[in-house]
């Protein structure tokens, strides 16, 4: 029996799981002044002990940031005032390789989120970022012995892999891409570097957990993953933050390089608090026969712009995107995916589900581009939206640009609600109306949750239940 589907019998949810604010003493933290100037950028650079090229790069990005306009097409970001965001907050202690050495207050936070336990049980390695800095990084010995590198990006920048970082960093997402990519380039801090050598298959996932605890702060972590020829990796990313009454900003950047015959699965369950502006950029490039898989759950944030992009460069490369977005009260979540087919016989599948409730605005937005070189490319998009009341919005804005005849593109979108008959049917078996609705919504989300590792699927179902009960 599929017991993982047994969503309704899970224990009641405790919102405090994510919402607790950590008791911390100001004096233990270094916090940079709010606002963004050349001075702040230089200060971050100095804090990070950047190589010269990185410092120059940051200043270049700052110029771009000031020149590029905010997008005219997405949700409003008027509530985000960069003069009130501190771009750098760190604990006055160094990153630890041993859990026992992590400062007590931060340790408590991650303990409450269940991170160390997850590491012991089912992960190959864990990185934990608290505000702007990684506070903990560890890889299981047997994985490290395979030659897998999983470290914080900053030490990688100065170590053995310095050249590799330099030749890949913000090459896939250039700072010219959009305003917040430029911002990221200017003040990025923290994040991970993963290198999986040729032919190495990492059997259990690596995970990064991001926690933004400081009010009115920005988190700008950079994740750079290179999966070399024939290698295989599953990387999981989790995010959360307690709720404050001031805007917080997350403008991270994820760059993924999938080499020939390699496979990378990148899973995210995003549960930022509902004062977060999540302007995150994720991009992958896939070489011949490579496979990129995205699993993405968006539950938190006040406002999101999130469209992981895949460039199918090599012949026969493949991409699969499975995503769910739940837009509740006060949320405007603009999410989707982008794909560019360049190689021959490339294929992409985008499957998304979106749920809108209590005045939430959920927008599915995508683009599928088939370039002239992508002969025999195949693309299929399917997006379903569920409206749970008539004060919310569910919009579907997909775009396709096809420049060869020798391609096969299919697209399907549906929008609707939970039918009265379905609710009555479940109620006739003794299930309350509220549970019947939650059950149908969980069923609707099932194609996504079944792609997640068990503990994440459970977390996702908890989040759905939390949203359905109106306490999200």
């Amino acid at each position, binding site marked *: 029996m599929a017991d993982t589907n047994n969503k309704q019998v899970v224990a009641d949810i405790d919102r405090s799981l994510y919402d607790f604010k950590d008791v911390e003493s100001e004096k233990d933290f270094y916090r940079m002044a709010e606002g963004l100037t050349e001075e702040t950028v230089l200060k971050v650079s100095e804090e990070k002990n950047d190589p010269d090229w990185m410092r120059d790069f940051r200043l270049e990005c700052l110029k771009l940031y000031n020149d590029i306009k905010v997008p*005219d*097409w*997405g*949700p409003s970001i008027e509530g985000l005032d960069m003069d009130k965001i501190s771009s750098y907050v760190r604990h006055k202690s160094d990153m630890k390789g041993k859990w026992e050495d992590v400062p007590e207050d931060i340790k408590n936070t991650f303990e409450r989120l269940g991170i160390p336990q997850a590491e012991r049980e089912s992960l190959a390695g864990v990185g934990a970022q608290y505000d702007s800095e990684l506070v903990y990084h560890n890889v299981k010995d047997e994985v490290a012995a395979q030659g897998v590198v999983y470290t914080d990006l900053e030490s990688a920048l100065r170590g053995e892999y310095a050249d590799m970082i330099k030749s890949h960093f913000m090459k896939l997402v250039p700072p010219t891409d959009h305003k917040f990519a430029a911002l990221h380039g200017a003040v990025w801090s923290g994040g991970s570097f993963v290198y999986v050598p040729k032919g190495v298959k990492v059997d259990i996932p690596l995970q990064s957990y991001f926690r933004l605890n400081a009010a009115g702060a920005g988190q700008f972590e950079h994740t750079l993953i290179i999966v070399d020829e024939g290698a295989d990796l599953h990387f999981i990313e989790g995010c959360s933050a307690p709720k404050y009454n001031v805007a917080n900003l997350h403008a991270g950047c994820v760059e993924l390089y999938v080499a020939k015959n390699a496979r990378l699965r990148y899973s995210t369950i995003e549960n930022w608090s509902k004062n977060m502006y999540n302007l995150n950029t994720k991009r992958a490039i896939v070489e011949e026969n490579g496979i990129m898989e995205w699993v993405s759950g968006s539950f938190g944030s006040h406002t999101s712009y999130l469209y992981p992009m895949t460039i199918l460069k090599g012949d026969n490369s493949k991409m699969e995107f499975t995503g769910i977005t739940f837009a509740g009260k006060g949320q*405007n979540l*603009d999410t989707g995916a*982008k794909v560019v087919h360049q190689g021959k016989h490339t294929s992409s599948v985008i499957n998304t589900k979106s749920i809108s409730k209590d*005045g939430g*605005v959920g*927008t599915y*937005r995508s*683009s599928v581009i088939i370039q*002239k070189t992508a002969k025999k490319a195949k693309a299929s998009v399917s997006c379903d*939206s569920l*409206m*749970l*009341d*008539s*004060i*919310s*919005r*569910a*919009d*579907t*804005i*997909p*775009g*396709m*640009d*096809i*420049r*060869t*005849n*020798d*391609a*096969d*593109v*299919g*697209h*399907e*979108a*549906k*929008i*609707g*609600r939970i039918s009265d008959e379905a609710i009555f049917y479940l109620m006739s078996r003794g299930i309350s109306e509220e549970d019947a609705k939650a059950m149908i919504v969980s069923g609707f989300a099932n194609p996504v949750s079944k792609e997640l590792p068990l503990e994440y699927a459970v977390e996702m179902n908890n989040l759905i239940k939390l949203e359905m009960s109106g306490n999200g």
Partner: protein
Amino acid sequence: MSNDLNMKVNVLPVLTYNFLHVNDSTLQINDFNISDNKSPLAKELPAGVTVQKAVPFAEAGEIFRKNNDRILAPIDGHVDPNGDTSARDKDQALRTGMGADVDGLMISMGATVDIYTVEEGVKADKPIILNYDMKDGDASLSGQVIHARKDSEVTVIIAYTSDKDAKGFQGVSTRLLAEEGARINLIKSQILGDGFVHFDDIGGACLKDGKIDLVTLELGGCKVFSSAYVNLAEKSTAFTSNMGYLVRGDHDLDINYVADHRGKKTEASMQFKGVLMDSAKKAFRGTIDFKKGSAGSVGDEQEDALLLSEDVVNKTMPVILCQEEDVEGRHGATIGELGEDILFYMQTRGIDEEEAKRIMIKARLDSVAKLIPDPEIMQKTLYYIQNVV
């Protein structure tokens, strides 16, 4: 007459990524000296239908403004979608597919329109036929308003023709009002010459139980804008659209269709079938917009584009906007070459690939052309398809 007009038209109801270059389109008429503002006389009018000739464009808009308390009844608790562009067209007497800049052009050029009024309860016994027969070098702007009063029914057929290699410019505005229980059936066949820039900017509104049906064939012209915005203002109104298109050479077709569901139990069904050849370009925008209060409504939009050359550019933007729980919206798109199965099937019957393609293109366009209720115009259109293909 100004000669440097660059107008933003066919604006998507909600903006998206700029790199797709599909948020709007530009209508350039710098190269034309618009001199002719005449629209054709209907051959004969059915009983119960009257025409008022050469009414200034803005004045003709009054028919819609008078009904604005119904067509644009305020919606409580409306929330704009992300990237909403409706503000730019809010001053139009009636929203149209191409938008406010065309109204501006019509007014600044002194264009006039003919108003056809179908009296209450009249079921017109024959169609109103308007033949726009264009000559090489013509540049004209004109239009018509079709006003179907309560419980009336009318069919209007508009044919745009010219010699095959004629050049010119021809812009038309067609605005429709179907009052309570009225039905307007509009058929358009466009087989203009290869040098024609053409636009047809359609706007429509339906009051309670009113219905608008469109059949459109866009087969000629080098740069064509084909657009419609239909406002389903009140309960049980409906809009259907069937378009067949063929784009060849380096021609360009730019489409913007919107079904604006406002009333309860409204229905929209839009089908777009077409063929792109050579280095043709096409942008299709189709939007189903379920406004708050449109409970019980259904909207469906299907695009089927056959691409027959490796140099074509096909853009498709099917949008669904929704702020109502009790609705059903669907869209689908199939884009690509002729299916291998059907090709193989034909080959087993001794038909070669080229011939099979011809048959399939023809079948696709003929199926729409056969909806033309006037035998002469239908034959002419079928003949055009036969010749081109």
